[in-house]
């Protein structure tokens, strides 16, 4: 546990002194951020080591490409370093959350910029024609999992960048709608709307994978 003195002015203009109590991890983080703000590359490297995996996972789930994910991690930490002076230890929640927000924005920007990714995007109507779910007779075999993954990737490519990110944050990063709204800088209502849209598109393309539909298709 650690104590950091704070000072605020109340509505009557009086100065209020109080202390914020932080856990050990947060105290370490604060110390590292302060050192990095003063120009310590070593401190920044420690922050990189502590957070790199979380950013990589987010980027990988978003892009499904390791090379792109590495680029996103680099962009995120470079942007964070250059904006480090704007990070307010007292006002901002914590460094990891701040970095995560940068990671989300970098992922969306990266995908927007990445022409290769855009070229690979298939029109919605063609998705169902790419892989025939009836070919996979055993839902428990390993190819089934790969098939679902490939299908999901194709469907995600048809969503907007924001819808895709909201779905990833909700379904894979398991963040609450409130947290997503904070990270994406929008209302909870807007997050829900985009999430419903994303789930509805995914459902539309995944219904044929469900056992009852497979049975119906085989019967026909």
């Amino acid at each position, binding site marked *: 546990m650690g104590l950091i003195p704070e000072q605020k002015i109340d509505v009557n203009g009086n100065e209020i002194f109080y202390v914020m109590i932080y856990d050990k991890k947060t105290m370490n983080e604060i110390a590292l951020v302060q050192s990095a703000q003063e120009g310590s590359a070593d401190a920044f490297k420690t922050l990189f080591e502590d957070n790199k995996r979380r950013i990589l996972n987010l980027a990988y789930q978003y892009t499904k490409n390791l090379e792109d994910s590495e680029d996103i991690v680099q962009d995120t930490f*470079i942007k964070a*370093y*250059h904006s480090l002076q704007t990070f307010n230890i007292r006002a901002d929640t914590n460094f990891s959350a701040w970095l995560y927000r940068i990671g989300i924005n970098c992922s969306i920007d990266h995908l927007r910029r990445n022409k290769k990714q855009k070229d690979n995007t298939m029109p919605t109507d063609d998705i169902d024609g790419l892989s025939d779910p009836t070919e996979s007779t055993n839902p428990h075999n390993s190819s089934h999992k790969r098939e679902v993954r490939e299908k999901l990737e194709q469907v995600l490519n048809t969503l907007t960048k924001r819808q895709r990110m909201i779905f990833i944050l909700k379904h894979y990063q398991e963040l609450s709608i409130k947290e997503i709204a904070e990270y994406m800088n929008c209302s909870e209502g807007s997050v*829900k709307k985009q999430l419903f849209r994303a789930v509805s598109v995914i459902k539309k393309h995944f*219904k044929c994978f469900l056992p*009852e539909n497979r049975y119906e298709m085989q019967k026909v």
Partner: protein
Amino acid sequence: MKCKKCKDNIVLMLYGEITDKEKSDVMEHIKECPDCAKEWQSTKGVFALLDETKDETAPEADWEKCWGVIQTDITEKPQQKSRKERRFYALPGWAYAAASLVVIFVLGVLIGRHWMTSDTQTAAAVPGIQSTDSSEYIKQTLNEHFDTLKPLLVAYANYSAEENGKETVTLDKEIVQNLLIQNYLLKKLVVESDPSAKELLEDLDLVLREIKNMPSDDKWAHSSIKELIQEREILFKMDILNTL
């Protein structure tokens, strides 16, 4: 509960984002509505399929290479200064554009003012008097103008329908028109420099317009002009300005 709301809540329920009350409402609706029951089954099934891909984690990245790229960048370029330390040069692009627009606007106003003043001085030359920017000249011209108007205004101010019987003040419309033009030009000349003279010239403008527009033998109009002169104390103001 409507089916649309129920379908949205099914998604939220699977993500654990609704209250117990909302959850029981959804379940009750599903029992009664076959469409929503089907939706519930299919959504649950799709979510189960998607969950199969949840265990997928990113492969290990080349962290040495990653840090190398970051290190090169951060050693080459210094950190941005904090908001407090930022100076003028650190402003965003739109701030420069806005500042340029303000400068252009101010310059435009200054140039426009200078031009308008020149126009006023040129206009002052129209009555055929020598153009000069000295305040003495303006004062002299004003006094001459007041001297011309004074007998006319006195005649109207002393008008009495009972005493004069059928007598009215008669005036050539052309003379009134010329007086109006002269009054207008003088008003432009003294526009900002002398507020009291400007006010008097505006009153005179009103009286001259009334005179110009009224029928020559209209006694009621004569009385109204008399009232206007008295109400606005035009003769008194003219005396004051003449003595200054």
